[in-house]
């Protein structure tokens, strides 16, 4: 019992202290060494840039976020559907799974130019790129989950003459749910990475510019402080996506899955 409260407190405080110390050191080094703001701006300069360029950067963030979330949703739906097909047909799984792997291991930067040429609509092109990066963890995790049903429960379902649809609905899908959510957690970060990489490759690509292009642009103009500000927004977005999925997963699994159950008082 003793020591648990301080532990929880430290969990929040310790990283904050580390962050503050690093930022202070950074600011100190920049000032003492007199490093030019177009090479390495200090945290204060970055904060200023965040304040002045914030509104326009937020507009770009929204563009990137839209692609990310759309890609994540597509990855969840299509990834889940593909995993479902795989679990229904072993033949389908062994014939198609290697191609899913190939798609996953080929660097998206290398395929993105092709996709951007082939797909006329820029939003859709970026979406496809982000989806390719994001769908695999969901497919692979959910496939494992769908095949992980307790063998005795499978036997019990057979004993009561359950139809394949019943077995799927009442046994395989619930079993696969934690696996699916774990895949979703990985895919959330990957969708953002995919969207940013695709934007880098695509350039402006139309009337709307995403955050990635703003980073490139800031680099060309040596507006390094703005570059950092955009970078900060991207990281914050990634963290927010992760936390949102984590929360969702805890809410869904809170009653029964060990990963989501609150620690119990001994």
């Amino acid at each position, binding site marked *: 019992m003793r020591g648990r409260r301080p532990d929880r407190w430290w969990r929040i405080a310790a990283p904050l202290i580390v962050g503050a110390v690093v930022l202070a050191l950074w600011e100190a080094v920049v000032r003492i060494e007199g490093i030019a703001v177009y090479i390495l701006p200090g945290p204060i300069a970055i904060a200023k840039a965040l304040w002045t360029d914030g509104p326009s950067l937020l507009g770009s963030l929204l563009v990137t976020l839209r692609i990310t979330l759309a890609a994540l949703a597509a990855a969840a739906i299509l990834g889940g559907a593909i995993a479902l097909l795989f679990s229904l047909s072993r033949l389908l799984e062994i014939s198609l799974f290697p191609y899913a792997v190939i798609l996953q291991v080929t660097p998206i930067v290398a395929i993105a130019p092709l996709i951007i040429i082939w797909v006329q609509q820029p939003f859709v092109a970026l979406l496809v790129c982000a989806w390719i990066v994001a769908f695999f963890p969901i497919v692979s995790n959910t496939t494992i989950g769908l095949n992980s049903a*307790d063998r*005795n*429960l499978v*036997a*019990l*379902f*057979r*004993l*009561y*003459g*359950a139809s394949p649809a*019943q077995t799927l609905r*009442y*046994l395989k899908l*619930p079993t696969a*749910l934690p696996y699916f959510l774990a895949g979703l957690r990985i895919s959330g970060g990957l969708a953002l990475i995919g969207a940013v990489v695709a934007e880098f490759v695509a350039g402006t690509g139309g009337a709307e510019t995403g955050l990635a292009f703003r980073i490139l642009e800031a680099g060309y103009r040596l507006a390094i402080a703005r570059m950092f500000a955009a970078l900060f927004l991207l990281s914050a977005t990634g963290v927010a996506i992760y936390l949102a999925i984590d929360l969702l997963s805890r809410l869904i699994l809170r*009653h*029964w*899955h*060990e990963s989501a*159950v609150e620690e119990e008082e001994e």
Partner: protein
Amino acid sequence: MFESPAAAASPIVELRGIAKHFAGGVRALDPIDLDIARGEFLSLLGPSGCGKTTLLRIIAGLSRPSAGERRLDLGRGSERPAGQIGFVFQDPTLMPWSTVTGNVLLPFRLVGRIGQAERARAAAEIRAVGLAGFERAYPRQLSGGMRMRVSIARALVTDPDLLLLDEPFAALDEITRMALNDDLMRLWESRRPTVVFVTHSVFESVYLSTRIAVMTARPGRIAAELAVDLPHPRERALRTAPAYAAICAAASRHLAEAMAAENAR
């Protein structure tokens, strides 16, 4: 099926020459003939690896014998055994995402529909195994013994003619095990389903059964059969009665003889 006296006297399970070998030539079961009478409590007693679980799964229809014939007469004129056989595994085998009620309702969900009557049945069954008040608990919130009670309630909820239990209490501590023995005995005495109970405990088998089939391993076969003529209702006091001790001694002797014969071969 007509309800003639002859039919009533016919065994609920008839096994003729049931054998099972696994790939690689392992003889799990040598040809076994076994009749199980309606309403009896039969224990399959033997060391681990003697094929008693395999035999139980064959009776349930979960495993196909390599040879021989299995006939079930579940007495309701239906070939589809769904809901007429209850099975309790070594592990509670509950769905962790479902509440106690959800788990106990599973057989109804799979066999047909869940209505008012089925919900009432499930609630009654949960009370019967002593879990009133835990209807909305999830399996992870329960102790091992309580989970096993849920598993038993689930097996009983369809009021099956045939209840198959595969070493259900092997993983429990002695105190919980005895409590569950008593509860199972009470349930059987009040409803008299046909029970096939797999165990490696001599004391448990004698306490619960009306008949014991002693099995030996490599290959699995029934080495001896033993009627347990102890009065009902059976209660705690029986465990210290001389008659109980005498039958335990006899069962142990059969088991020892069978295993000696097996080792001599």
